């Protein structure tokens, strides 16, 4: 059950003879809608050791895949590379990289420092200008090569876009098996790229809607293991699991506050669902909504001051925003259709939602005041959006129609153009994206 291994990464900027110039360098503005992917070359990381070379090749492959999947980069095929660098401390032959139309080059090295220690270094080059943009060094164990590769990809992403990456993250989700009328569901977790998938439970009971706490160590979810289903909290490092509160009736739709100290959830009382806030230290609860309508799916703004939620108080399911302390709520969805499952972006600038109209379900985003609605994807059933920690990508579940209908995870960026299937060990639903791992 202990699946979280603390990765100690010592990040050192590689200084010295090749230090960067202070002038503006190659960069990507990812806020622009119509973005041409930046061609980047990532050769296998070199090493003096055989084992280091194997790790170096694997790291480069993960970096290439991460960058390519982002849609912001076009990862060039290593088959096209002309120069084979033997030392990353010398300038590459930029002409060789310009010929293959690379704008950026990543030269990396793995240095084995004993059986249980390695150093991974890379330099990021602006091929057009012929200059180093960045140089970083990471210390880790050889077993952590995958996370190290994601860290490298994150730092390249950050250097070129100016924003935090999202590659060293994990996804908790519900693994699904069996026919529609007898579906087995169990909690599972994997790296953002589908690697290292593990089950967190045996799968005897229906479990739904797992969500990360801001520390990435704890998840909350809903389970039917007792007659009256309830919300639980699970520490994924220790496996310790706890029933949250002692409610006489069903609790569901839990989500942590951004500081991790409290939780919003829905409590059903006499058939009516209302939002409640629970302080996780004192376990005291306060009621946030009092309408006789459905009030579910609360999600905090990143500053913790507001909540967006789903209510049918106006006659049909719509999105509302109110203070995290409760009180008056303001409707923000006004398009044609039924809105649900709102999730506030970690950046704070957007709210993702599900909109159903004409028998289809779409994933969309809007500004927190309801303006600027944009639909990103649509199918028979798209739902359960979750944000990358940098607020640039959404992963959601897509279920196909019919008796053999099955659920898969997909990702889409904010432009709506970079739609991709997310690799999972089997059928999957209810994804939740972790924050960047420490």
């Amino acid at each position, binding site marked *: 059950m202990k699946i979280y291994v603390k990765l100690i990464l010592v990040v050192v900027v590689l200084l010295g003879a090749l230090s960067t110039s202070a002038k503006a360098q190659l960069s990507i503005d990812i806020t622009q809608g119509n973005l041409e992917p930046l061609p980047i070359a990532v050769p296998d990381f070199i090493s003096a050791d055989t084992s280091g070379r194997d790790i170096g090749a694997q790291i480069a492959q993960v970096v290439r895949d991460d960058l390519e999947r982002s849609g912001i980069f076009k990862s060039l095929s290593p088959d096209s590379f002309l120069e084979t660098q033997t030392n990353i401390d010398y300038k590459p032959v930029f002409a060789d990289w310009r010929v293959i139309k690379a704008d950026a080059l990543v030269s990396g090295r793995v240095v084995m420092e004993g059986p249980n220690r390695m150093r991974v270094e890379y330099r990021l080059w602006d091929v057009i200008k012929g200059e180093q943009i960045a140089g970083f060094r990471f210390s880790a164990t050889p077993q952590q090569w995958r996370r190290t590769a994601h860290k490298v990809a994150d730092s390249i992403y950050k250097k070129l876009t100016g924003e935090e990456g999202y590659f060293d993250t994990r996804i908790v989700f519900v693994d699904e098996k069996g*026919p*529609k*009328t007898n*579906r087995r*569901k169990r909690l599972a977790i994997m790296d953002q790229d589908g690697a290292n998938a593990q089950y967190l439970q045996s799968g005897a009971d*229906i479990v*739904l*809607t797992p969500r990360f706490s801001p520390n990435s160590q704890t998840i909350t979810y809903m389970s*039917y293991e007792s*007659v*009256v*289903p309830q919300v639980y909290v699970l520490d994924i490092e220790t496996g310790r699991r706890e029933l949250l509160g002692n409610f006489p*009736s*069903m609790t*569901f*739709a839990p989500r942590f506050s951004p500081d991790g100290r409290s939780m919003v959830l*829905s409590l*059903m009382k*006499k*058939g*009516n*669902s209302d939002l409640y806030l629970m302080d996780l230290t004192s376990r005291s609860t306060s009621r946030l909504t009092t309408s006789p309508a*459905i*009030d*579910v*799916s609360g999600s905090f703004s990143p500053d913790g001051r507001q909540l967006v939620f*789903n209510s049918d108080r106006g006659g049909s*399911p719509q999105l509302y925003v109110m203070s995290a302390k409760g009180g008056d709520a303001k409707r923000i969805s006004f398009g044609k259709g039924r809105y*649900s*499952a709102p999730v506030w972006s970690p950046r704070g600038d957007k709210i993702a939602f*599900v909109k*159903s109209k004409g*028998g289809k*379900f779409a994933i969309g985003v809007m500004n927190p005041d309801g303006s600027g609605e944009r639909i990103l994807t649509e199918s*028979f*059933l798209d*739902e*359960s959006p979750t944000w990358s920690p940098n607020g640039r990508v959404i992963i959601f579940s897509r*279920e196909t*129609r*019919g*008796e*053999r*209908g099955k659920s898969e995870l997909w990702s889409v960026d904010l432009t709506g153009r970079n739609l991709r299937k997310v690799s999972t060990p089997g059928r999957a639903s*209810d994804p939740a994206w972790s924050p960047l791992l420490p």
Partner: protein
Amino acid sequence: MKIRLILLIAGTAIGLAGCKTTPEELPDPTPVAEAPIVPAPAPVVQSPRPVVETAPQSQGPIFQGPTPGTLDDFLYQSGGEARVYFGYDQYDLSSEARDALRRQASWLQTYSTVTAVIEGNADERGTREYNLALGARRAESVKAFLVSQGVSPNRLTTVSYGKERPIDPRSNEEGWSRNRNSHTNLMSGSIG
């Protein structure tokens, strides 16, 4: 004598019309009891006898329903199933649903130790958490009606399964209308 007799009876069994036998040769009545030994003849080529169909006649009572107080009995008395159905995004009870629930209530009053979990269900055309809330409303509608018919609220627990427990896998009107239901699930205290 015995052999002759058997042959003779066999002859009759074959049913040859107009077969003439002399009265003198009529056997003793008692051996007739042996008649069952004579099943072999050709015309008896018939498919397996419907043993089951005739069985009730020998059992006496005319009413053949399930044992009173059992789950089968509850289903039988409720009109065949323990579910009532709802319209799209609706949780009000149709007159048909009310009739079915009146029968459920009357059974529950007869067997007053039985408790039940009222499970609300929704079709797949809704997001997960909204459907959990919708299923909760359906379960509560059913509970409120049963209580109005005299069933103690303490005997009824409501739960929503949202869209997690479809009974029909089809993604069409027929399938969806079956999956929008409330199921009265009998728990402790039932006799059977």
